[in-house]
């Protein structure tokens, strides 16, 4: 800790400049979420509220995979929790910044923390950046971009009115397949991924029309990977 951590407008603006490529990269994800929201019957207002207050694309897609009418708060909330558990490990990494913040600066920065601005903030912090406003500086434009692109997707969906099973909904699948390609670290992922896929298939057969298969598959797969790692260690 050579210099004190600050939270300045200059740091916020540096973050905003860094967010430009991130905005372009995540735009298609937002559009896909909006199209799916239209597909499961969410109104414009409901889509807007979800984009603003949930602001977690993967969790939104997982919850909407089996959106019921009327919606199930328990299933949706639980799915969002499991999908977003990874975020719980991200905040503590930025503790050297966040521990120095109070009030809205802290809680607001955490609200707009997503994978991309977190990763760039960790890098900046490790390179000696002392202005914690960078995280929010990237996060606020990204949230704005997320709202705009989701609503754009919702409008697009309303224009196309695709029937259930239309191949445009493959886009949601493509988002996750792309993420799997990015996540792939090698042979160590084979076992947890295979267990996750298998348990998901079996659970869907036992509990059709619910999103529990995603939760069950994810928990089984990650436990399998962690147990295997421990037995090897």
């Amino acid at each position: 800790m050579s210099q004190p951590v600050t939270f300045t407008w200059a740091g916020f603006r540096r973050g905003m400049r860094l967010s430009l490529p991130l905005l372009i990269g995540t735009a298609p994800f937002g559009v896909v979420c909006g199209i799916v929201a239209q597909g499961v019957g969410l109104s414009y207002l409901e889509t807007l509220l979800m984009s603003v207050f949930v602001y977690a694309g993967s969790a939104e897609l997982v919850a909407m995979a089996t959106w019921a009418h009327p919606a199930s708060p328990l299933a949706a909330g639980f799915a969002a929790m499991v999908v977003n558990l990874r975020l719980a490990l991200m905040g503590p990494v930025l503790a050297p910044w966040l521990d120095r913040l109070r009030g809205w600066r802290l809680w607001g920065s955490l609200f707009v923390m997503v994978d991309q601005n977190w990763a760039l903030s960790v890098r900046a912090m490790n390179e000696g950046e002392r202005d914690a406003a960078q995280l929010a500086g990237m996060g606020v434009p990204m949230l704005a971009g997320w709202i705009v692109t989701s609503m754009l997707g919702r409008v697009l969906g309303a224009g196309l009115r695709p029937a259930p099973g239309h191949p445009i909904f493959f886009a949601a699948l493509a988002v996750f397949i792309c993420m799997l390609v990015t996540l792939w670290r090698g042979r160590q992922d084979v076992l947890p991924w295979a267990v996750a896929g298998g348990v998901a298939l079996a659970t869907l057969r036992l509990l059709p029309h619910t999103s529990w298969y995603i939760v069950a598959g994810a928990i089984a797969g990650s436990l399998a990977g962690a147990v295997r790692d421990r037995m090897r260690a």
Partner: protein
Amino acid sequence: MSLAPATLAAIVAMALATYGCRAGGYLVFTRIRPTPFLRAVLTYIPGGIFMSYVTPALVHGGLPSFAGAAVTVGAMAATRNLAVGIFLGTAAAWAVWVLR
């Protein structure tokens, strides 16, 4: 501009769960260090979620989905660009769906 009470409740539940992870994780895990086992479980969760979402959808989606998945993987591996992966993969699934 409709807002169904159950949908609102579901969105609130999702918002609380998500912010609980963002803020709660920071509060808890800066005070209690997660065990290596818990850390390993949490790092495997994203891959597990995406596999659980994708596998049944592929099995039930048939040929268009398989074609789309193959093209998505190829495009993403080659370009590492989310937009390219989504666009080419969806286009491939759509093309096979139309031609079939």
